């Protein structure tokens, strides 16, 4: 793991949690989802998307996490 700005490098034999392995876009979605108290309806309003579209994004993130856990 390294920082592109300060060039700090962390080297070690450890596993990152699945959420850390998700793309930045999905991590942001997860963060926003938690901040919206897990409300798909609220997320849909914030993202200007329909309820099923947001639920489909959530389903795809869940699927990615499950795959990373296996």
């Amino acid at each position, binding site marked *: 793991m390294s920082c592109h700005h300060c060039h700090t490098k962390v080297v070690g034999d450890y596993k990152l949690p699945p959420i850390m392995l998700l793309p930045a876009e999905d991590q942001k979605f997860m963060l926003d989802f938690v901040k919206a108290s897990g409300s798909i309806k609220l997320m849909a309003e914030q993202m200007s*998307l*329909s*309820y*099923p*579209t947001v*639920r*489909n994004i959530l*389903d795809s993130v869940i699927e990615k996490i499950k795959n990373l856990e296996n």
Partner: protein
Amino acid sequence: MVFIFNPFTKIAGGKALWIGGLFAILTLAISYFSHSAFDGVIDFHVAPFTSIWPYVSFYIISWLCLVLFLGLTGLLFTKTRFRWIDILGTTLLSRAPLLLVALAAFAIPYIDKEQLSDITQIHFTAGFFIASFFSLICIIWTVALYYNSYRVCINIYGSKAVWTFILALILAEITSLVFIHSIHFK
């Protein structure tokens, strides 16, 4: 361009239901005067009725048959916990292009069984062919909207989405025809 074929990434649920409802009311009001009957999920015929109720019942039966079979397909083939309100709303909104078909029907005359038996006696105008072709395009547009509504609401994709949609559409079409004919054409 994407929006006219798939508005459902932005609109679904109750919002789609009331917008679709407005389109349905307008379509049915025009249908009564242009004698356009939507007697099946993908059917359109010019048929004069003295009351508006056959047009209304055909429209509602067809819509609900589609909702039922798309929902049942979703229950059988996906793990997504979809909402029935999304299917109700998006499928009703998918029928919005039928408003244009109802308008085009003013240029399509009613042809009864007697006239059909001697087709050479019917005088087909250029307007008839243009309106018929335009109606066909609008019905194809409606089916494309049905498919995208199904994909978004049920969260299904790839070849599985295509064949399950075709299956649901065929079953909904048959069921709607059976219902409509058993009610109105006994």
